[in-house]
């Protein structure tokens, strides 16, 4: 009975979210067009800020929907979930190779809610590699190091220097990592690709 209620709730939530997402898609693309029409004016930057605010809202909405689906999936091993995530990203990343390397010793026990947050951070890193790096090759590695779980997303793209302002995406990644009691390290040099390294304490051992 509980499962039926859960499924029904999930379906209702997804329908609600879907309608909102369609509206936001319209808002974003219309604003993208307006932004192009305003190229070279002060308005262009303002609109870009507003577009990013909407995209941020969309990320949160999608995360909420994803959480609902994951209620069951949290029983799956983390490497399995990451495989699905990488596969979905491969779909969207035409002209880019994404490799996944799960090292021996990474636990196969489900990571539950922590795994969900972990995946969100990795999704953000993959989106950045797809949209901003110009990379042809991306490697996602997963390993256990002592009492920590470590994931790395590295690309062979254009990299960025210390003078680049970190985007909203990077800030939210750091915040999520901190909320897991972990840390995020980003190594990048212009022309030398980017490596995002996420380390969190193994759940149950904080």
């Amino acid at each position, binding site marked *: 009975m509980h499962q039926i209620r859960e499924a029904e709730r999930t379906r209702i939530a997804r329908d609600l979210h879907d309608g909102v997402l369609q509206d936001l898609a319209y808002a974003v*693309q219309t604003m993208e*067009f307006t932004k192009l029409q305003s190229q070279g004016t002060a308005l262009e930057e303002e609109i870009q800020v507003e577009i990013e605010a909407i995209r941020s809202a969309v990320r949160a909405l999608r995360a909420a929907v994803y959480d609902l689906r994951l209620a069951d999936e949290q029983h799956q091993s983390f490497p399995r979930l990451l495989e699905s995530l990488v596969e979905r990203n491969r779909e969207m990343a035409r002209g880019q190779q994404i490799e996944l390397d799960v090292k021996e010793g990474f636990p196969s026990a489900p990571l539950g809610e922590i795994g969900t947050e972990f995946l969100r951070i990795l999704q953000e890193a993959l989106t950045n590699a797809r949209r901003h790096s110009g990379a042809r090759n991306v490697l996602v590695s997963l390993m256990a190091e002592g009492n920590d779980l470590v994931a790395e997303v590295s690309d062979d793209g254009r990299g960025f220097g210390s003078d680049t302002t970190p985007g909203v995406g990077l800030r939210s990644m750091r915040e999520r990592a901190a909320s897991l009691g972990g840390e995020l390290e980003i190594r990048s040099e212009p022309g030398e690709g980017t490596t995002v390294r996420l380390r969190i304490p193994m759940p149950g051992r904080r």
Partner: protein
Amino acid sequence: MPEQDPRKPIRIMLVEDQARFRRAMASLLGREPDLEVVAEAGSLDEARRHAASVEYDVVVLDLGLPDGNGANLIGELHEANPGAVVLILSASLDPTSLARAREAGADGILDKLAPPVEIIGTIRHLSGR
């Protein structure tokens, strides 16, 4: 696959029931000299009618149409214009929905909220340009 003359624009059919989103996409794609929107449809039915008479290289397809799931159309869109590619734009990115589209033969899947440069780049890439 028919040889594509690189000097000819990539011909695009938009299939999406939200008219104002279709207009936004048409405006964005219309700015590109090598892209041309040749048809628009707001339902499976309308898309089928166009597919029978319009030549296109790319179909930008929404899955949530009023008269059915866009995935059901993919095979027909390929048959009507052999060599054409179908790009799904999805707002929900619902895995089940996308899996179904993939199985039906979608050539590409993108976030409906992706930056235009990504959508346009994917259209060119899928068209072999």
